[in-house]
């Protein structure tokens, strides 16, 4: 029997039933143009040369695959390796994608960029490359996130971006995407939308995945060099799902590698306050793609809840939706409290303060490692650093850590 090679999406951007292009007609010309330009760029050695140059010299790739010995001892099981995306310029994996898309923007002859941001990491990464490539930059951010991530707002402004606070709906990432799409509809002739995750209409889920796959490609080679074999498992957190798909995609054909995506359980998946789209949602269409979606019985999209602004999204990338249906990836969830514990634990054991998003992956990896033996190994995508979260974690913990 021949094994079918994983080749998703199809040419129309479908991952099984998921994905596609559910956008207003006004945007169709732009997404088709983007897809064509992306295809041309992929065949152009000059594009990959420029991309690789910037990833190495500007972003600081490759990032280390760090053996977290103290954390491993704490978990008392499989070896835990951290893929240090937090060490990228701007402090998260988001820049892998924004560099690629900003280069495409310039190739399309557009000089303006719009983007959404949740935690602010994608906004900062977008504002950064726009400064570098001299592109005008407008960032939409939910009012609630502006409050939670005040410092990142100031960073974006320092970098020359205009940050627009979004008050509609839940005033978080979902609403920022709505406003960014509306802005794009009105300015599509000269503006590119740098979407920050593996969501939205085709070709975004594929293109963002491709730009982020550098995470998994490097990890695979680095782990092989250190351990002489493939890891037993890879773990990454999921909001829209860009760092996780970047980690997972290069391992999809390695059937011995188990993959775990970690959603935000917020106050618990049994409550109404979580962001666990894959665990609790059902297929729906939002922001241009079919995907698992938190929605009520009438198809109204529900608000997501997570301590982490970057995971606070009611949908999840179409490819993750497909990977769940075919059973290739296990999707788990971690609560706010578990993430907060992991946040502090990683700081104390390894001297690394992770982003709250990444702390969800760390929390799950500790549980997973504990049930595995010492010869086995796990790679955790440490998608971002936690400086941005120190303030809100302090608020949350109060004085609890003082003697």
């Amino acid at each position, binding site marked *: 029997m021949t094994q079918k090679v994983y080749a998703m999406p199809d040419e129309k951007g479908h991952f099984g039933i998921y994905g*596609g*292009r*559910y956008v207003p*007609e006004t945007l169709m*010309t732009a997404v088709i143009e983007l897809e064509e330009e992306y295809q041309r760029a992929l065949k152009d050695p000059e594009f990959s040369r420029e991309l690789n140059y910037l990833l190495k010299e500007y972003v600081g790739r490759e990032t280390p695959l760090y053996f977290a010995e103290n954390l491993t001892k704490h978990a008392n099981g499989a070896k835990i390796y951290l893929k240090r995306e937090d060490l990228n310029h701007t402090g998260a994996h988001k820049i892998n994608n924004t560099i690629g898309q900003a280069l495409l923007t310039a190739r399309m002859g557009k000089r303006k960029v719009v983007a959404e941001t949740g935690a602010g990491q994608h906004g900062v990464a977008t504002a950064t490359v726009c400064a570098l490539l001299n592109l005008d930059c407008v960032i939409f951010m939910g009012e609630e996130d502006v409050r939670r991530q005040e410092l990142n707002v100031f960073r974006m402004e320092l970098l020359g971006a205009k940050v627009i606070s979004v008050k509609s709906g839940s005033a978080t990432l*979902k609403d920022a995407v709505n406003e960014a799409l509306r802005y794009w509809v009105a300015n*599509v002739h000269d503006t590119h939308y740098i979407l920050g995750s593996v969501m939205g209409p085709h070709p975004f889920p594929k293109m963002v995945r491709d730009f982020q796959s550098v995470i998994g490609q490097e990890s695979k080679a680095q782990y092989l060099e250190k351990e002489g074999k493939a890891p037993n498992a890879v773990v990454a957190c999921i909001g829209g799902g860009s760092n996780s798909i970047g980690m997972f995609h290069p391992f999809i054909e390695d059937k011995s590698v188990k993959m775990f995506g970690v959603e935000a359980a917020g106050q618990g998946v049994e409550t109404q306050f979580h962001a666990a789209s894959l665990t609790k949602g059902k297929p*729906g269409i939002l922001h241009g793609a079919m995907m698992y979606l938190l929605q009520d019985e009438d*198809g109204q999209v529900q608000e997501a809840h997570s301590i982490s602004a970057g995971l606070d999204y009611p949908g999840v990338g179409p490819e993750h939706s497909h990977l769940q249906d075919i059973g290739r990836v296990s999707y788990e969830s971690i609560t706010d409290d578990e993430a907060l514990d992991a946040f502090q634990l990683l700081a104390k054991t390894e001297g690394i303060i992770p982003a709250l998003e990444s702390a969800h992956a760390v929390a799950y990896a500790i549980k997973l490692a504990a049930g595995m033996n010492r010869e086995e190994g796990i790679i955790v995508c440490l998608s971002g650093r936690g400086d941005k979260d120190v303030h809100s974690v302090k608020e949350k913990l109060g004085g609890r850590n003082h003697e």
Partner: protein
Amino acid sequence: MNRIEKAFHQTERKSFVPYIMAGDGGLDTLKDRLLFLEKSGATAVELGIPFSDPVADGPTIQQAGIRALKAGTTLRKTLKAISECRNEVSIPLIVMTYINPVLSFGIDAFAEAAAAAGIDGCIIPDLPIEEEHLISGALEGKAIELIRLVTITSPPERIKAIVSRGNGYIYAVTVAGITGTRSGFNPDLGAFLQKVKELSPIPVLAGFGISTPDHVRDVSKYCDGVIVGSRIIDLFEQNELDEIKKLISASIAIQA
């Protein structure tokens, strides 16, 4: 001849299609509003279904949707309200909804319930022709027209592809942007509408940003009529019924 074709055939004037948000003001106002619009000379009515994330809509329709959702409006309740008054309203009724509420309802179940309620057509702004197979078969099976949109950003070959599949009428979006009133129109609007008109075998109605009697007169020159949404919603909200009549009769004044 179906109800939409009939409405466009019988009229000796340019068409005027108002858009209202179902459940804005409560679903119990629906019947009165439909009867009022019909009596005032509307060719057909587009009935919006509120959605939590209306990316193609500007502030007015967003707010109307929020009001309707707060009043407990759903697609199911709207179809029920329509079926209860359908025998009193003779003009075509077109449902305008984002795709997710339909998907959640169930595509076949929706087609069946909409047909039973006497719905003549359906507009889904986030369903381009590339994805319409999701629902087009089910609608065809129930003789509900899928009304397609072309926009000022659609290149000629796309316009051709869209109008060639056309049912009911073509919804020509006059702006690169979202719904809502605006001060001026793109200088290429006339040329765009004429181009669509040339290519389309079915009536072409212009919509988005049309808010005054002058707009109605000016834009109607280039096509078969207009669709007015945000302004109608505002006027109902302010209970300015005479202004609605004036808008609709601005269209009546034009001889086709």
